[in-house]
């Protein structure tokens, strides 16, 4: 990037235009001016003098003027992308340009662009179109809140951001370097799809990206932000990444677009109905969250990035916290209603326990019976998994199991401690669930929870019934600390259900239920067997967890040697 700086050297004010990297301080600048004088006999003149050539080292300034112009032209072309008309059209759709997005996402002045001069090499089928600046994608690296990130931003103003071979190669290059250095990759997707004219070359590009997505999986976090169309094969790269976010009303994800759908199945469907943010965040579960507009999405992505470690080699980040670690939360004493039929909002518990009520929820609109997301405890990132009694009574169904499992695996891959809040009456019964394979899908959550070796802390707030108790990071899956609140009941099932099985035909059901509740509807049976480590006054929960996390930060655990486990997909 070129910058313009005013400097005073030997009493004269001079304007210097040169690459930013060369003039980080005034001292450097003075040296530079001095250096250039000695080289080219340059005379500093008062303000507003273009000194580009003069201020740079000799070998650069010695190039013939034509080469400079060509470099400058190419650079300008890359910077303007598809031209003002297309930029205006992009803005008119409520979207920012690829460069504006990069500018908003990164810390000011940190963007280092790669491959600005890459163009598609071959003459294209049937196209007499001009050269494609930057191959329709901007790639590079920069910083978010002082930490590095690799990113690509597809430029819809350049041939619709379609993916050519060169386009894909640029993306692969930064992904490779991200893996080598252990730095996450963020993709800002806004592409019309494959560059049809390129045929198989374009297709190979997708394949190369997919391969890298998979190789990078578990090495560095990969985040996709869909900011425009993302169709066909392109849709699979976000699907392979760790998190897929969308922008409401302006982004679409689908494998086949409305036209093809119409011709094949006869369904008349709009882009929004087929694969808009609403569909993917609430119905399909393809996307993890949607944001209001480009600006909101990019600023929230900056917040989100802060929760993540850079790679699997890094610990969960710890940030300076202002919320006291030993804060007592009296409100927690009142949250769980005594009536087991009465739901409570698990969000209230999470908000109260974590730092500054700052919960970055993942998939808030999908499978609401389980809550997952990131938060901090005393500044340290934790992943939260919690049953939500207000939805389906907090029971686990297929969607909830898959949602929970994927989140747990992400946390485990990147050293993020898991905090589990339990109020689960069991797996959701019914033919719909059984026939759709709740066993197969429920096993994913079970598998993920057992497999995780990061610090695991579990708090049973109320119900922990049956098989679902086991799944929710119980002691039996090597959870590190298991707590029960005084309202906890760890049992095979609730009093009513148990009595109807055990005392079939018994007239005095109410008495039997009371007996059962007396025996099982409290945390003592579990505590007396050591299945919970302590019965905790709810108000002390935050304090205790903060201390535990501090201790568990040194936890080392390994599992038997193997190629890889075989999670029931």
């Amino acid at each position, binding site marked *: 990037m070129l910058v313009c700086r005013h400097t005073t050297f030997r009493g004269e004010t001079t304007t210097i235009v040169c690459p930013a990297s060369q003039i980080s301080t005034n001292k450097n600048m003075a040296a530079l001016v001095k250096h250039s004088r000695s080289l080219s006999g340059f005379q500093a003149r008062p303000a507003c003098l273009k000194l580009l050539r003069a201020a740079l080292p000799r070998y650069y300034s010695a190039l013939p003027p034509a080469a400079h112009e060509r470099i400058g032209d190419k650079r300008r072309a890359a910077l303007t992308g598809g031209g003002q008309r297309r930029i205006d059209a992009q803005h008119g759709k409520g979207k920012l340009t690829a460069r504006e997005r990069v500018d908003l996402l990164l810390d000011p002045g940190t963007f280092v662009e790669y491959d600005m001069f890459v163009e598609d090499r071959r003459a294209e089928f049937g196209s007499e179109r001009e050269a494609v600046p930057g191959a329709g994608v901007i790639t590079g690296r920069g910083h978010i809140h002082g*930490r590095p990130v690799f990113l690509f931003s597809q430029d819809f103003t350049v041939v619709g951001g379609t993916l050519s071979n060169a386009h894909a190669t640029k993306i692969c290059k930064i992904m490779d370097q991200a893996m080598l250095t*252990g730095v996450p990759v963020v993709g800002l997707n806004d592409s019309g799809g494959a560059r049809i004219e390129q045929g198989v070359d374009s297709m190979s590009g997708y394949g190369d990206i997919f391969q890298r997505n998979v190789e990078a999986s578990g090495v560095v976090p990969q985040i996709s932000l869909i900011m425009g169309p993302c169709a066909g094969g392109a849709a699979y790269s976000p699907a392979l990444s760790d998190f897929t976010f969308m922008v409401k009303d302006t982004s679409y994800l689908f494998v086949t677009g409305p036209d093809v759908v119409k011709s094949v199945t006869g369904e008349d469907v709009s882009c929004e109905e087929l694969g808009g943010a609403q569909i993917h965040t609430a119905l399909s579960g393809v996307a993890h969250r949607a944001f209001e507009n480009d*600006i909101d999405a990019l600023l929230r992505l900056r917040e989100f990035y802060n929760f993540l470690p850079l790679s699997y080699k890094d610990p969960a980040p710890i940030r300076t916290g202002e919320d006291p670690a030993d804060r007592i939360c*009296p409100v927690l004493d*009142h949250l769980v209603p005594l009536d087991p039929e009465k739901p409570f909002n698990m969000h209230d518990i999470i908000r109260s326990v974590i730092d500054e009520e700052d919960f970055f929820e993942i998939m808030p609109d999908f499978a609401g019976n389980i809550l997952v997301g990131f938060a901090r405890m005393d500044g340290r990132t934790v992943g939260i998994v919690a049953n939500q009694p207000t939805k389906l009574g907090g029971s686990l169904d297929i969607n909830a199991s898959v949602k929970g499992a994927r989140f747990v695996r992400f946390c485990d891959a990147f050293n993020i401690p898991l905090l589990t809040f339990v109020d689960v009456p069991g797996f959701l019964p019914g033919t719909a669930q059984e026939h759709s394979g709740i066993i197969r899908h429920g096993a994913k959550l079970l598998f993920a929870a057992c497999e995780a070796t990061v610090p695991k802390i579990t708090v049973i707030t109320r119900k922990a019934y049956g098989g679902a108790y086991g799944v929710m990071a119980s002691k039996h899956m090597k959870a590190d600390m298991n707590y029960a609140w005084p309202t906890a009941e760890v049992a095979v099932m609730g009093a009513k259900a148990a009595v109807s099985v055990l005392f079939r035909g018994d007239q005095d059901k109410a008495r039997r239920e009371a007996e059962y509740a007396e025996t099982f509807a409290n945390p003592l049976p579990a505590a007396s067997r050591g299945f919970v480590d302590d019965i905790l006054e709810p108000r002390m929960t935050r304090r205790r967890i903060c201390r535990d996390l501090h201790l568990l930060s040194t936890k080392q655990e390994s599992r038997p040697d193997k190629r890889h486990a075989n999670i029931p997909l």
Partner: protein
Amino acid sequence: MASYRFNLVKRVPQFSSSLYRIARRCCSIYTTPVDTNEPTFDKILIANRGEIACRVMQTCKRMGIKTVAIFSEADRHALHAQMADEAMYVGPAPSNQSYLVMDRIMDIIRKTGAQAVHPGYGFLSENKEFAKKLADEGVAFIGPPSGAIQAMGDKIESKLLAKDAKVNVIPGFDGVVKDADEAVQIANDIGYPVMIKASAGGGGKGMRIAWNDQEARDGFRLSSQEAASSFGDDRLLIEKFIDNPRHIEMQVLADSHGNALYLNERECSIQRRNQKVVEEAPSIFLDPDTRRAMGEQAVALARAVDYTSAGTVEFLVDSQKNFYFLEMNTRLQVEHPITECITGVDIVQQMIRVAKGHELTIKQSDIPIRGWAVECRVYAEDPYKSFGLPSIGWLSRYQEPTHLPKVRCDSGIQEGSEISMYYDPMISKLVTYGDNREEALQNMCRALDNYVIRGVTHNIPLLQEIIAHPRFVSGDINTKFLYEEYPDGFQGRQLSDAEQKEVAAMAACIYLRDQVRAGAFKNENRMPLQPVNPAAWDITAIVQGQEMPATVTENKDNFTVTIDGQTLTVNKDWSIAAAVLDATINGQQNTFQCISRKGDEIKLQYKGTVFKVEVLPKKATDYSHLMPEKPKVEASGEVRSPMAGSLVSISVQPGQDVAIGQEVCVIEAMKMQNSLTADRSGKVKAVHFETGTNVSEDDLILELE
């Protein structure tokens, strides 16, 4: 063994800290000591809930009396039930199945052996039948004798009794008036201004005010025509018209030995829908002579009905300081704490002593007016809807400002309590006092600023606004104050330009702190951090829809915020995690509350009202101007419940056409009915609830096509 026994000592209750706080917090204001040698009850049952039950228990504890609380299903975890020595379940949540069921309460009295009952206010406090039942069982009722309750409970009888006791009553005439001359004669006898209306017309309907003979003639003509045509009843009511009426009441205290005295007045003119909102003692309006005259009449009335215990005689006072008897409340009033603050008398203690048959130890001459006290009734209600529609919810965060000097807060709730739809939505009575009115009001302002209430909508915006209103501060108030000052309803504090900048500056500083902290990682060891915090941050703060570009700089000791060429210096000694932020802006003390931070949006409570401020980097707002605004969603055609309550009626059916503004259903909450209307015309698509069901706030009740 000794140490073993030590372990058996009763477990310290979980809520001990809040209980001690409550027990401690208001003892200091009382100057009436407890005589431990004086016989008293062993055990008192408090037939009430909430703050007043807690209030009564404090005095009981002070006097060494055991307490019995009763609680309904909804109050199982309520503070009053925890505070009592014994707590007994009285019935399901609705009060007519619990706190109002005399037989159950009598059972509990028998079971627990309580010797006396304090009824608090409301519920059974003015129920003569209850007083009688207690008397039959030989249980003392801590209140007046049932004869007095009965006498004062009837509006007409109480006026006649008052008249006999030489208490000023509103002069008037009710009957057939022959002609205009007679009307003028009557009006002159009463004294102008007078109010003339048809006797049969209810309320203020057809009311005419006459300030002179001519207007009296006109009033007679119009009202008698109306009386004849509309009601077929010739009778007219001509009554003294009270202009700018103030509501001022006298606290009286009497024993069964013939002693009666008054504890001076309380002014309760700030009202909405005839419910008091802000009260103060003494009244800024009364001079010593009027006070004495009023007090003596109040005492005379109390004597006339053989009153014992504490009671309140309410008066209307006109602009000429003429006062007229309104009614007598034969119970402990809600607003009694302000009287306690200025007199030092623990009224509950005196009530208990009197009920035990003791003589009052204080004399009229002992009763001082020490400084000034103000009380705000803090309600869980939305002040933007007709000065307060009940809201319910759950106190996710709650801190009373009792750490401040000269603040008393009477409440029956704590963090985590639920404000349910079954009872009065009062959160607390916040009382502040001082050497004079100005100091008391300043303390109130500070207390309201520091009062942390999260999870329910509350009326602190309105209270803060009243306390700071120039007309209130000057003392120029009457019972119509709110309706005169806010004819279009309360809209929240209107910020001046300077205040708007302060809010923007504070939000900008919070934003900056958050941003700097966002890059402050403590364990990035593998790859050193490269934070590049600019020297000055260019941001845009959007306050109430207005974009304010600003530059924020973090200095060693403070922040400087430049908005619109003006520089504001903000101190740094506050935490972004705290609920209350004590900020100093340009040397000026300001208290903010950070209600929430979510994304770009920071909600700040400032001078009572919550303002939403969006803070964005400047380049984000620059970019946003490049793009068209997203279209706003138009009139939804949805009817959502504005609060939790039960659906009393639904007046439309699916398929029916409704017009804009047409009533579609009625919701009842906290004994109030609210009519909901359609926000546009259209055909009803679906009704999602049935009559009689309960709805929560924001539930979708009905949709239009």
